[in-house]
């Protein structure tokens, strides 16, 4: 059923590495930014409680969410380019199943997200002044689940963008405002009720809550509703994409 999936995934990874700025933009930039941010706060960490809290709690979640969004935007763009230039159609006219082609792209993005996460963790240990020992396995799992869920929204967006040219900007317009309402910058409780309602309708809000909980080592059971919401988003968006996804 997934004949050729590993071949195709490995091939797409190699092709991606050949893109100018492909690896550097996806993996290098976030890690670099992370290190630079950490260095610039370095001096004040121990004297300022707010900074300490930011570096210790918010920054990792922020970085993780940016990674997830970056992966999704990159997915939307590559699907749009592949569709526009007829690559999707050509691959589809082989024994490759449609879902195999799309799954391969999701796997590629997850591989690079995982790589970024590992490098960030390593960079954090080496360069950050705050000694942290978060539950890495839970956090990585939370990030994986969040990314997969948001990627299903990405497929829906990829079905709707008219051309590859607009894929990146339209994706950004959809995902970055979600970030603003996700509770990452402003606590949900301090938002007006109407805005809170909107925030609760957005998948990123649940991703942020789940990631924060995982980072702080809260039990999974406490975030069962976040998991349920992300799962619901995944199921609905995947089902919708299966109906409206355009191959050419």
């Amino acid at each position, binding site marked *: 059923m997934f004949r050729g999936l590993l*071949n195709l995934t490995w091939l797409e990874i190699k092709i991606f590495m050949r893109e100018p700025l492909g690896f550097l933009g996806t993996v290098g930039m976030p890690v670099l930014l992370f290190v630079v941010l950490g260095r610039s706060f370095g001096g004040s960490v121990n004297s300022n409680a707010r900074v300490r809290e930011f570096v210790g709690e918010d920054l990792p979640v922020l970085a993780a969410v940016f990674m997830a969004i970056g992966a999704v935007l990159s997915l939307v763009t590559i699907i749009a380019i592949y569709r526009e230039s007829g*690559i999707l159609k050509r691959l589809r006219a082989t*024994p*490759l199943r449609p879902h195999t082609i799309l799954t391969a792209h999701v796997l590629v993005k997850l591989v690079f997200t995982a790589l970024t996460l590992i490098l960030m963790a390593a960079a954090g240990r080496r360069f950050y002044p705050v000694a942290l020992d978060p539950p890495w396995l839970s956090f990585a799992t939370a990030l994986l689940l969040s990314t997969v869920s948001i990627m299903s929204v990405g497929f829906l967006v990829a079905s709707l963008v008219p051309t590859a040219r607009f894929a990146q900007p339209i994706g950004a317009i959809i995902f970055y405002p979600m970030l603003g309402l996700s509770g990452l910058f402003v606590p949900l409780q301090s938002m007006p009720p109407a805005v809170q309602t909107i925030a609760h309708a957005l998948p990123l809000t649940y991703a942020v809550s789940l990631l924060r909980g995982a980072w702080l080592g809260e039990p999974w059971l406490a975030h069962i509703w976040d998991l349920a919401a992300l799962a619901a988003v995944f199921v609905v968006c995947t089902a919708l994409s299966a109906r409206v996804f355009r191959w050419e």
Partner: protein
Amino acid sequence: MTRTAVIEVSGLSKRYGTTVAVDDVSFEVYDGEIFGLIGPNGAGKTTTMECVEGVRTPDAGRVKVLGFDPARDQYRLQQRIGVQLQEAHLQKRIKVGEAISLWASLYKSVVNHDQLLAQLGLSEKRNAWFMTLSGGQKQRLFIALALINDPEVVFLDELTTGLDPQARHAIWDLVRSIRTRGKTVFLTTHLMEEAERLCDRVAIIDRGRIIDIDTPSGLVRRHCPQRSVLLTTEDSRAEEHLGTLPGVTVTRGDAVDNPLMMPLVIRGDAHDLMTSVIQCLADHQIRVIDFQTMVPTLEDVFLKVTGHSIRGTS
């Protein structure tokens, strides 16, 4: 000789919104032949072919390829056919060798990669990225991908569009070699010369409907039986003598530099027109300076049966 049909299409229809792309199309493609679907851009060639390949689902009609229903048995059928799509692309930075390996991993039985690349003149391009290939090389790669699983039927959609004449001739040789190996080839083209040189039989399609199906020479004989001869002579008796031949009209052609050298245009339906003209010239000992025969082509047939030129927009 009874021939086995490897592709059977009957009553095929496909519409996009309110536009009818393919309208009640029926034809058969026989084992071991090169069959061409010819018509202008937008006539429904690609849609028809993609319904037969199983890439597209028809609205109505019956399609059988090697006994399979392409819409239902797409994956089993794909093991036995090879497909080249119109204006297809691969990943910009995929290597030729990688594309071949990927495709090879998808089929149960495959031909030898090295031999295939050598046959298509791509051996030296094995490590080249797709984006660095010329138009002709890309098309040869797509033919290679279509042949990797040693298919029984090969589909080629607008194979030589955008290629220079030299690359085009090379591709034509390749297609003939596919037939030589006993494969069936189903192709589409809007180039009448291509159809005339390659195809054993052609179907003319216009505005979604099949207008006629026959061998290229059969179509010409039935629709454009008229032959003509362009004759240049200084002998003033020629016009008069040739005019007495049964079923023949003689007119003066366009003036050339020397008014005495205006060619005579001799037209007639009879397939022995040439013989009778030559006989007549010999009988009257008319000295001929130039003698040209004008044979109608598929292009003339197309104009005759559709009422418009294949090059014009329909």
